[in-house]
């Protein structure tokens, strides 16, 4: 499988193959690339960033998944975020939704909001 690593602007072209001992990744320039290749081959994951509504305010609160989540869960998560309203104030790192859509990953605030 041919892939382009999304970790940094370098965008390494990776080649991922299944071997007897497991999965082999070639073409990466750093360890993050190798991890990406392996994950992308078995369970592709992505960071999800998004917005939730803030009660009584027009400006939304930006949020993210604290860790990458399986790609297949993205729409489920963005739909949930679209229907989420929080109360201010919020600070960077505050948990907005814990264990989002059963991924074991929390949604956290990425901006201070007063």
């Amino acid at each position: 499988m041919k892939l382009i690593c999304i970790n940094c602007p370098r965008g390494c072209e990776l080649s991922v193959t299944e071997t007897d001992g497991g999965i082999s990744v070639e073409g990466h320039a750093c360890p993050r690339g190798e991890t990406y290749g392996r994950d992308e081959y078995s369970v592709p994951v992505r960071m999800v960033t998004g917005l939730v509504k803030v009660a009584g305010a027009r400006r939304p609160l930006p949020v993210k998944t604290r860790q990458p989540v399986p790609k297949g869960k993205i729409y489920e998560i963005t739909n949930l975020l679209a229907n989420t309203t929080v109360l201010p104030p919020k600070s960077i790192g505050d948990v907005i939704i814990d264990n989002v859509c059963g991924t074991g990953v929390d949604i956290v605030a990425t901006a201070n909001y007063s």
Partner: protein
Amino acid sequence: MGKGENDVIVIGAGVVGAMVARELSRYDLKVLVLEAGSDVAEGASKANSAIVHAGFDAKPGTSKAKFNVWGNRLFENVCKELNVPFKRNGSLVLAFGAEDEKSLADLKARAETNGVPVEIIGKDELKRREPNVSDLATAALWAPTGGICCPYELSFRACENAAANGVEFAFDAKVTAIGPGWTVKCEDGREFSAKAVVNCAGCRSDELNNLVSSVKYSIEARRGEYLMLDRDEEHSFSATMFQVPGPMGKGILISPTVDGTVIVGPTAEDIDDKDDKATTYLGLEKVKEGALRTWPKLPLNKVITEFSGLRAHETTVGDFILGEAPDAPGFFNALGVESPGLTSAPAIGLWLAERVAEKLGRDRKPATEISHDVSSWPVTREMSKRDLAELIKREPSFGRVICRCEEITEGEIRAAIRARVGARTLDGIKRRTRSGMGRCQGGFCTPKLIEILGEELGLPPQAFLASRKKAPKALVTRAAASDADAVYDVTVIGAGPAGLAAACAAREAGAERVLVIERDDAPGGILQQCIHNGFGLHRFKEELTGPEYAQRFVDKAEEAGVQVRCGTMVVEIVPAKDGERLSTVTTMSRRYGLEELKTKSVVLAMGCRERPRGALMTPGTRPAGVYTAGTVQRLVNMDGIMPGKRVVILGSGDIGLIMARRLTFQGAKVLACVEIMQKSSGLMRNVVQCLNDFDIPLLLRHTVIDVEGREHVTGVKVAKVDEDLKPIPGTEIHFDCDTLLLSCGLIPENELSKGAGVEMDPKTRGPKVDADMATSVPGIFAGGNVVRVYDLVDWVSRDSEIAGRSAAEYAKGISA
């Protein structure tokens, strides 16, 4: 505010320091006030009984007696001059039985020696005047000259008037050392000198005196706890109700206040910690117990707050210590000024200023040169309906009520911040306007207050939540009286990552006064709207979103003591001409209007803007629905507005790609991303994670040849292009869409740079810079996207730090 310019330094901006400074300002003297707290009246002056004592109680022959009686006489006039409330409501000292009545007789004798008019009234007369008083009270001493005032308002206005007459103020300036001559050093390293020093440091005045004089004093902090009752009880008593005094003070009193509330207290307890203003269970019990003696029906359910204050009680002499220290010429004390200190303050100010002026051989200014301005603003709750309606028409902010309990408007709050010695904290606003002092005690208005503070002072609102009384660090380096007179070492234009990084680096490289000017309402620049992740891998070794990355620099700038002024647009930079030392930066803002700032060096960090549609020469109608990608990014991510549902993106710059994913997440359908070149102009990783992940087609070697729709976009026509980028007939594809996003490149924003005469590089469209990020104009440096469009914010901050350091070095080479 530099070294060696002052004639007099007043230490302490309590009511005594304020009165001394105001009186000194009437002489031909340059005066600086140093205050350890972040505001005027932070010590005893903000928490006391607010009583203007008649003077019957002080021991005849003492300074307390002399200044009390003199101060009481001056008070009415001083309050009139300063436009602060004062009421001679009279004082009553209650006797409960024969023994107390004997004490009343002693007090009466004392009063007569002190020259204070009093009379003793019987039970019936007392009950007639004060129906709520206890039936157990048998007689009372009536002192008609007793009064009530607002001690902190008195202090504020005295300082405003002092500032109007040229006195400067430095806050958060805790004095830790005093050297002969006199040199005054602060805890944070600031150093000042003056020919004379006046010690009005309240509970710490003994420590300062003992640094310079062999005549040692010792001050004990005597804590007093109070209760405050709601305005509903305004008419419970008309006079100030005392009980017969004891050795520790005048006992528990009950008094109306000039604000209409009722004050009850204080206790008197000597404590070790000169900062301990906590209230205690036992203390408040004592207040209640004492008050119930005077007022058996004391309505405890009407208590709105409780607080405590500290009196500076001198233990060796037990009197005010006023005047020049015998063995330290030019060092004057106002030491041990406990009750009746507030009453005495106007007289102490008058007397001490005269002594200081005499010592330095200075005359009074001619009366025509003395300003009577006290920075007054309209108090809406005291205005007639007609006047108020007119005011609101003129100034709509006086029509927006922020504090509903006390009915304080936005206009009043902004005026309190903009005053010469303006509020910089929540407490500062509260004491200047009463906002937050009413029934809800700030429950409703706090969020609005921090927003206004943030706007006015150019900081994020949450900076004002760290402390109610301590000003945010970023404000500490701010100029004392007027920013306009200040000279900055480094002025940075733009508070995005480039500007903030440059400013922090400049501070680290030793530049003292670093100012960042930002046109938006908050610092952070374009990163605020870049809510996606992928920033900071190189710098922070982790992947952050834009707002998180920005916040790290905002925090860093605050810690570094960088001033950030938001909501302010730079309209012109005029570099220093030959023979001049300083460049001029002209700014425009709601707060300051048009202003010219002087600076030793400038860092350009204005960033870049997007290429608009006109620059692309796309044919078709000019309907609504065509946006640059960054505009939509702001609309969606910051304003919560989705501009459309079916979207085509022209150009494959990174912002366009990022917005393809964002709009998909927000429920829109992105039909295609159209790129005229052979490959995407954005990063491959963004093509993968923003287009491929969502099966959005990337049409390479295609362009938009027609935009359809009269009022609003209804569709676009896309065609393939040949080698010469000309559309190939017959290859047209039609998309039904309501939005066209343009992501066709960024242009460094250099109108200011060009105006300043900076030489430009036609290729990068930014200023030509050398390895130190210096432009062709001496003293002007540049960093970030204003120089060239970067791929990565980490390189923006790295190169801007070079610009900041270079600017700091340049500023060092310019004499102060």
